[in-house]
């Protein structure tokens, strides 16, 4: 009887903790958006973050996008070939890159790269009292640290997604047409027939939400760091895991809402 009660207490406390964190993160998001419009940060700070988040993430996003498109083409080729439908690889690559893989992969890559570095950087600042120092200099950490990262993410993750979608389709094209010998015209025509701007818009809207998730989890986890290097490491891992899971879960719901 005693043991059972303990189990409930553990479960209960986990849920309460989770809800508390969710609430705090949401408050932080509201604060961030409020701050973004009431006192926008300096341009050079945003530009620095844009370079970190956008430009520096480009290689990894291009690489994963390209290979995903190629893998899609290779995998589907053998299946579709048996149905004599190999020209529809274009459709498969086009639809999955725009609706799903482009935004999700970009989101995951950015969560791994940018989310982690945000959590680590802000976490270090937290444990070395730099966040406190910021406050003593009458500067809001939200305004100075979170808003620029948030703006850079929200503006650039959709653009990264566009890159990813494009390079993914190019990768599919290279494999399908150059390697598997599908007729190029059919590949492109089929893709264009079945993929339209709604699919592209879908992907970009998703990317927008993923950007919010990555920025807020990274910053929130960073701020919640305590202890020393160990604490920073812990929040960094948490930030990546939480961001990835949130991206996949929200992707499911966004897919339901958007279609």
């Amino acid at each position: 009887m005693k043991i059972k009660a303990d189990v409930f207490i553990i479960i209960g406390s986990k849920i309460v903790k989770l809800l508390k964190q969710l609430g705090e993160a949401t408050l932080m998001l509201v604060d961030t958006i409020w701050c973004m419009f009431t006192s926008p940060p300096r341009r050079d700070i945003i530009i620095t973050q844009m370079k970190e988040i956008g430009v520096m993430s480009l290689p990894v996003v291009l690489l994963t996008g390209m290979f995903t498109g190629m893998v899609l083409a290779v995998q589907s080729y053998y299946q579709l070939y048996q149905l004599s439908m190999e020209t529809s690889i274009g459709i498969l690559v086009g639809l999955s890159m725009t609706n799903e893989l482009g935004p999700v992969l970009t989101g995951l890559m950015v969560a791994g790269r940018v989310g982690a570095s945000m959590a680590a950087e802000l976490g270090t600042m937290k444990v070395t009292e730099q966040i406190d120092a910021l406050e003593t200099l009458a500067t809001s950490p939200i305004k100075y640290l979170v808003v620029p990262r948030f703006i850079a993410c929200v503006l650039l993750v959709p653009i990264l997604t566009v890159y990813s979608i494009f390079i993914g389709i190019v990768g599919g094209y290279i494999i399908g047409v150059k390697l598997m010998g599908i007729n190029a015209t059919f590949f492109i025509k089929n893709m264009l027939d079945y993929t339209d701007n709604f699919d592209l818009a879908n992907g970009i809207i998703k990317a927008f939400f993923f950007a919010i998730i990555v920025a807020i989890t990274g910053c929130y986890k960073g701020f919640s760091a305590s202890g020393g290097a160990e604490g920073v490491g812990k929040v960094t891992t948490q930030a990546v895991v939480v961001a990835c899971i949130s991206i996949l879960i929200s992707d499911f719901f966004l897919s339901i809402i958007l279609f």
Partner: protein
Amino acid sequence: MQNKNLEFKVGVFVAIGLLVLGFMILKLGNREFKETYKIIGLFDYTGGVVKGGPVRCAGVEVGKVVDLILVTEGLANDEVSHVEVVMDIADGVILRDDARVSIQSYGILGEKHIEFTPAEKIDPAAKILKPGDKIKGINPVVLDDLAKEGQEIFKSLRGAAKAIEKVLSDQNVDNISETISNTKNLTADMKVFINRLDNLVANNAEDVTTLISRLSDGSAKFKETLDNLDSILVSVKEGRGTAGKLVVDPELYNELTALIKDLRKYGIFYKGKGQNTSRSKHIKGYDSGDEDKDMGINRGFIR
């Protein structure tokens, strides 16, 4: 200086991203026809045509379906009498009212679209469709109806065969009139059947197998009849004729064409005016006895 370099990189990143985005938006955008006019197709059955679906003329995309209206006029209880398919056709595409308007499927997913098949020879008398004109469409065939019709045809064929038997064996001139009317019915029915078959094949290629299996019942019976005919019509077995070829069984075709040819030779049967220009032209082709050309009628099957 370093700051400028930073801004330059970010600027290039964003600019290229937006260019790629613009390129994709243009490419993926629904290629709209700029100037269009509206034509309304009338169908009893649309077989799953959707708004936004393509309209093609001789296989080339010339417009799209913009609306489907269930027409309830003139009927009690808001029953649906037919469907008006409103289409936007690109300006500069001239369609005449003698074109065949049918519902076809294309693409890997078998999407339905409206197909205009222009008459084979331009008929200056045929009216050019103006914006807002209505044109009667050819209804896609519902499979069950077709099977029923097929059986009726076989029934009347058998009646005809019996009549011919009487004529030829008894030399009973009085019965010839009966034969004529039977045969006339038969050919008329046959023609409709062929039309429908053609449509059906175009729309439901895969369903044809089902149809054939249904037909085989009938054709077994028909074979019997033909065996009878065979013995009677030894003398008139050279020519080649019409409709039979259209039914899949080549033997059936051979026998039927022979029969009609013979009938014509005796002057009992004159070919009626075709309701459908394009189809009747094909049939004329077969009547000429040109065997090579005959394969053309299989168009529907091959496609």
